């Protein structure tokens, strides 16, 4: 079976990768491009650990047919840092102990980034909603919510 070339922007760089028919974006990122930031949890859309941003909006890469991102922009947690500088969300996750085993963290960060990019001053309720498709089995969610609010707080979060 022949492979298809798919070109897209990956964390700001143009890339081309050959994919098998039916391949999902998660495996394409991990195995085709070596970007292991998005994780494989369930492959069913349930855990959110594979969350990436496609054209700025959160999507589940395990349920995205790789070919559908041709010509689009894909952002993963690997692209958050700027050289040695972490993204404010990554700093806030460290400061607020929002990662324990860390498995959910790449998906949580991308869900949170999508929220803050659109709504820099979210309420607590909006943060809960934004990460509602992401499961964490360690933290009990409170530290994650607090970290996202703190990252927003550098820009003055509303409290509600």
């Amino acid at each position: 079976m022949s492979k298809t070339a798919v070109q897209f922007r990956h964390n700001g760089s143009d890339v081309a990768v050959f994919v098998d028919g039916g391949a999902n974006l998660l495996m394409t990122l991990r195995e085709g491009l070596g970007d292991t930031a998005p994780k494989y949890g369930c492959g069913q859309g349930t855990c959110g650990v594979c969350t990436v941003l496609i054209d700025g909006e959160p999507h589940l890469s395990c349920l995205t047919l790789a070919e559908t991102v041709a010509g689009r922009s894909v952002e993963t947690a690997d692209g958050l840092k700027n050289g040695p500088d972490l993204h404010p969300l990554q700093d806030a996750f460290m400061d607020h102990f929002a990662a324990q085993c860390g498995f959910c963290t790449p998906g949580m960060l991308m869900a949170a980034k999508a929220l803050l990019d659109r709504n820099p001053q979210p309420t607590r309720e909006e943060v809960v909603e934004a990460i509602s498709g992401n499961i964490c089995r360690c933290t009990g969610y409170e530290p994650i919510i607090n970290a996202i609010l703190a990252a927003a707080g550098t820009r003055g979060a509303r409290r509600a």
Partner: protein
Amino acid sequence: MAITVRTFEKLGDAASAVMSDRGARFLAGGTLVMRAINEGDVAITTIVRTSDPALTQIRTAGARIELGAGVTMAQILANRDLAFLHPAARIVGGPAVRNMATVGGNLFAHAPYGDFTAALLALGATVSVSGGYSASDTPLDEFLSARDRGGTRGLVASVTLARPAAPDAFRFRKVSRVKPKGIAVLSIAALLPVAGGRIAGARVAYNGLSPAPMRARGVERALEGRSLDEAGIAPAIAACAEGISPSDDAIASAWYRREILPVHLKRLLLGQA
């Protein structure tokens, strides 16, 4: 096994491709199709897609609203003219699912999924199919019966519905155990037109209480000519289980679903939180 992916510019060509190949599956948002592929569903040998822009269009200008089958839940939430549909679109999965999940795909989602379809059923939506047995609009009730008999052919182009006369005339409630996002224990949608303080022509639909979203015809009959107060809705509550056939699943038992249905129907009809 690698799968063949075929992308067509026109929905009609995609419909022909699906109808001529038993192993072909149309891919919309992919939240159910890709899940099946990830689980190793060998029945899918070809994925059919379309880039037809008509599929993602929303028309709200006239008396009837038309939603392209490829419109996502996120698109509906971003459209202020569709505010009455927001409660039903907002509860489909989390934000990432809503960026992918389409109106057309929801029509084929099996229980306990299909919450948005229950809303469309209560709103009296019709379904327009490309390449199928009927070119004209089919009432959603008939479409869902055909779906369950395996009799839907072709691809859904759009659904059309009338805007409720008053904002409060359409109500939607999803009951789930995980908050704010969770699979439905059940959901209820109700179109409750009022004339002279009395209900006239109610349409009530359930999801999660039968294999496909269903009309609650006993409730509809019992509401006719009644007012929306404790005494007025009592016959409707008494009739609420007519025709339901809930299942036991990991979310809830059939018994639990039957027990909570009257509680939530009552709250919905009385406008309680």
